[in-house]
C-alpha cells in the first residue's frame, strides 16, 4: 500500500501533477494576496501552518508547528512533547494571545477549524487528537488519545541507496510519499485515530473526523457530546474507500465531502456515510473549504510536491464537481503557495490560506 502511494506521489511530482494538465482548460481567477498578514511579537514565531480559521468576529486562529518537538528520556521508553502552538490574532493580523499553552497533545499541527459557535478545534497529526477549545480557550472536548511513547528503530542502514520514498514523505500533504503509518496505540475503531486530518460538523452539531493519513482510512461520526455514532470507509480505490482522507467539508444539506488524497478525488457521502458521487480534476486534494453563501462552492488546495515549489494551485469548484477556476501556483513569493494545508473561506472572496513550507498565512482576495 505504501509502495503504491509512493509511486503515485513520485509520478505526480515528475509529471508536474494534474494541475498542469488542467491548466489549459481551467480559467485563472484574478486575485491579490497579502503575504505579510500575521504580525507577532519578536519572541513569537509562526512556523509551518497546520491550520488557520476565523471566528464570527473575524478573529484569526492559527495552529502551527513551531518551537521544538522534545523527547523526554524515561526509564524504559522515550516520550515526546511540544512542537506546536495555537495563536489568536485580530482580524487585521495583530497577535492577541496564545491558547493551549503546554497542553499534552500539541505536537504536530495538522489542521484547525472554528465551528459555528466559535469553538476552536485543533487537529494534531502525531498526538492523533482533536481538541475543542471554547472561545475562552478552555478545553471542552478531547477526541482520540495521544500515543504514549516514541517507537525507536534500530540504527540506520549503511550509506547509499536510500530510497526516494524515504525522502519524499513529508508533512502537509501527509501520507503520500510513504510516511510511516503506525503510531502506537492508534487505529482502534471509535475515538482512537491514526493521524487524523480534519473535523467538520453538520447542522445538528454532529462531529465528523477525517481519519486520516495513518493506518485508518475512514470517516468517524460522533454526536455533539463526543459519543461515537458510526464510521465508514476502508483502504482502497473503490467508491467509499480511501487512500488517505486528508480533508472534510459539509454542505448545507448535510452531505459530506471527503478529500481522498491518494486517489486524487473528492468523494461525496450522505450524513450516514452512504456513497453518493465523486469527482476528480482537482489534483491531489489537500485542503477543503465550503463557502456558506446561498450558492455554495468548495475550495480545494492541490499540493503536488512537499517542497511547495513545483506544483500547486487552489481550485474553486461547484458542488457537482465542475471546476469554476483556479488561482496561484507553487513558490515562496506573495501569491504563490508553499503547501497550502488549510483554507478559511468564511468570506467567499476573501480567503485565508495557511501554508506549511512558507511559514505564513496569506489573505487572498479574489477579484470579481
Amino acid at each position, binding site marked *: 500500500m505504501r509502495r503504491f502511494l509512493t509511486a503515485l506521489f513520485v509520478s505526480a511530482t515528475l509529471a508536474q501533477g494534474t494541475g498542469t494538465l488542467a491548466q489549459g482548460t481551467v480559467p485563472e481567477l484574478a486575485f491579490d494576496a497579502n503575504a505579510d498578514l500575521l504580525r507577532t511579537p519578536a519572541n513569537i514565531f509562526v512556523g509551518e501552518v497546520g491550520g488557520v480559521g476565523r471566528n464570527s468576529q473575524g478573529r484569526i486562529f492559527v495552529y502551527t508547528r513551531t518551537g521544538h518537538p522534545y523527547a523526554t528520556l524515561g526509564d524504559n521508553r522515550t516520550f515526546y512533547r511540544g512542537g506546536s502552538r495555537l495563536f489568536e490574532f485580530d482580524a487585521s493580523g495583530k497577535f492577541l494571545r496564545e491558547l493551549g499553552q503546554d497542553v499534552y497533545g500539541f505536537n504536530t499541527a495538522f489542521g484547525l477549524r472554528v465551528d459555528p459557535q466559535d469553538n476552536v478545534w485543533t487537529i494534531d497529526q502525531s498526538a492523533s487528537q482533536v481538541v475543542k477549545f471554547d472561545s475562552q480557550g478552555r478545553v471542552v472536548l478531547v477526541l482520540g488519545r495521544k500515543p504514549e511513547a*516514541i517507537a525507536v528503530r534500530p540504527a540506520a542502514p549503511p550509506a547509499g541507496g536510500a530510497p526516494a520514498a524515504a525522502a519524499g514523505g513529508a508533512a502537509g500533504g501527509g501520507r503520500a510519499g510513504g510516511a510511516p503509518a503506525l503510531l502506537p496505540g492508534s487505529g482502534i475503531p471509535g475515538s482512537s485515530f491514526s493521524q487524523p486530518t480534519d473535523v467538520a460538523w453538520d447542522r445538528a452539531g454532529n462531529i465528523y473526523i477525517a481519519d486520516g493519513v495513518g493506518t485508518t482510512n475512514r470517516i468517524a461520526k460522533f454526536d455533539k457530546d463526543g459519543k461515537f455514532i458510526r464510521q465508514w470507509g476502508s483502504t482502497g480505490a473503490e467508491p467509499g474507500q480511501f487512500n488517505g482522507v486528508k480533508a472534510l467539508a459539509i454542505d448545507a444539506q448535510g452531505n459530506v465531502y471527503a478529500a481522498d488524497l491518494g486517489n486524487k478525488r473528492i468523494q461525496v457521502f450522505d450524513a450516514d456515510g452512504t456513497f453518493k458521487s465523486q469527482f476528480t480534476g482537482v489534483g491531489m486534494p489537500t485542503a477543503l473549504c465550503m463557502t456558506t453563501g446561498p450558492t455554495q462552492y468548495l475550495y480545494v488546495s492541490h499540493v503536488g510536491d512537499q517542497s511547495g515549489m513545483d506544483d500547486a494551485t487552489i481550485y474553486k469548484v461547484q458542488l457537482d464537481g465542475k471546476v469554476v477556476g483556479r488561482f496561484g501556483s507553487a513558490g515562496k513569493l506573495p501569491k504563490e503557495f508553499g503547501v497550502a494545508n488549510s483554507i478559511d473561506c468564511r468570506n467567499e472572496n476573501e480567503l485565508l490560506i495557511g501554508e506549511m513550507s512558507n*511559514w505564513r498565512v496569506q489573505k487572498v482576495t479574489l477579484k470579481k
Partner: protein
Amino acid sequence: MKRWFGLGFAACMLVSLVQPGGPVAAQNRATATNVPVIPHEVVPDFFKNAPGIYTGENMGIATNSKGNIYIYHRAYETRLFEYSPQGVFTREIGRNNYGFAFAHSVRVDAQDNIWAVDEGTDMLVKFAPDGRVLMTIGRREDPVRMLVNMPGAGVYHGRNEKYKFGRQTDVAFDQQGNIFVSDGYFDARVVKYDKNGRFVKAVGTRGNGNLQFNTPHSIATDFQGNVYVGDRGNQRVQVLDNELNWKANYPNVGNPWAVCVSGGPGPKNPGKQYLYVSNSWPDSAPAAAAEFTGEIYKMELDGSIVGKFGRGGKAPGEFATTHQIDCRDPDVLYTAEINDWRSQKIRLKPAATRPSSTN
C-alpha cells in the same frame, strides 16, 4: 559471526557518540611549507553577556554592515544572539522558531538579513534585521516520521533533492542575490538557488575528484561570483565559478573547516579580497593535534598563501576549533569556536609579516 558483527556495530555506535564531527577522521597537517607568520592579537574579553546569558558551542559568527555581530550557538537550546559593535549582548533573534535545533553557521547578506544554517532541522532561515522570518529553504522532517521511527545516528545518503538538505553546513550569496548552500554531512554537493529561493542547480557527489566532495563544510563567494568550498574531508578548498563549474583546488592548507572571503557580502567595493581558511583543531580537542592544527591561512583568491596565524589551543589568541570566520574587514576577524564555548575578535598586523620559524 553474527555476534562479531554485533560487537563491531556497538563499537561503531560508541565511536559515533564520542566523535560526532562527521566523516573527518583526523585533522591533517597542512602541506604548505615556508609560510610566513602574520602577527595577530586578540581583543581580550571582547564579547560580554549579561548575567544569566550564556553561549554554548559557538558554531557561527557574522557581522552586518553596521558592525553588529551575530553568534549562532548551541546552548541549552540552539540560539542566535546579537552583539553591538563593542561586543555587548543586545538581543536574541529567532528563539523557539521552528528552524532552530542544532546550530551550524550564520551569515549576513548584502541587505543585512541574517541567515541561520541549522543542521538539526536541515533548514535555512532568513531573518530580516528586525528579526522577522522572511524566507526558509529546506523543510524540517515531518515529526510524525521521527515519532514512529526515531532516527539513530544518521548516515550519508546523497539524496540530492532540490529542496531538502542532508545536514547542510553553510550559505553564501553572490552580488545578484543568488544563494549557495554547502550540503553537507549526509549529502555531498553545492546547491544554487535564485534570490527567491527557487532551485537553479546542484553539483557534487561524494568522492575526491573535481566536483566531488567529502563533507563540504563551509562556503564563500567573491565579488566576481566565484564560489569557494571548504571541502573538509578532502583537505582542500574547491573553487567553482558562478555556474558551479569546477575551477581550481587549493590542496595545501589542511582540512578547511571554515572559509571566508573578505569584503563582506556586498555591494561590491574596491577593496582587495582575501580568502581565509582555517585548518581547525578538531572538536574533540586531541592534545597531539594541537601541535599542527588550529592555524588560519590568509590567501590570495588565486590560492597563493599570504601567511598564517594562530594555533590550536584554549588560551586567548589560540583557536579552540574555529568553526566559522567573519572577515568583512580583512584585518579584523571574528572566530566562532566550538571547544571553549567562545568567539574571539582578532586583529592582524599584515605589515609585520615575517618568515615562519617552524615551517
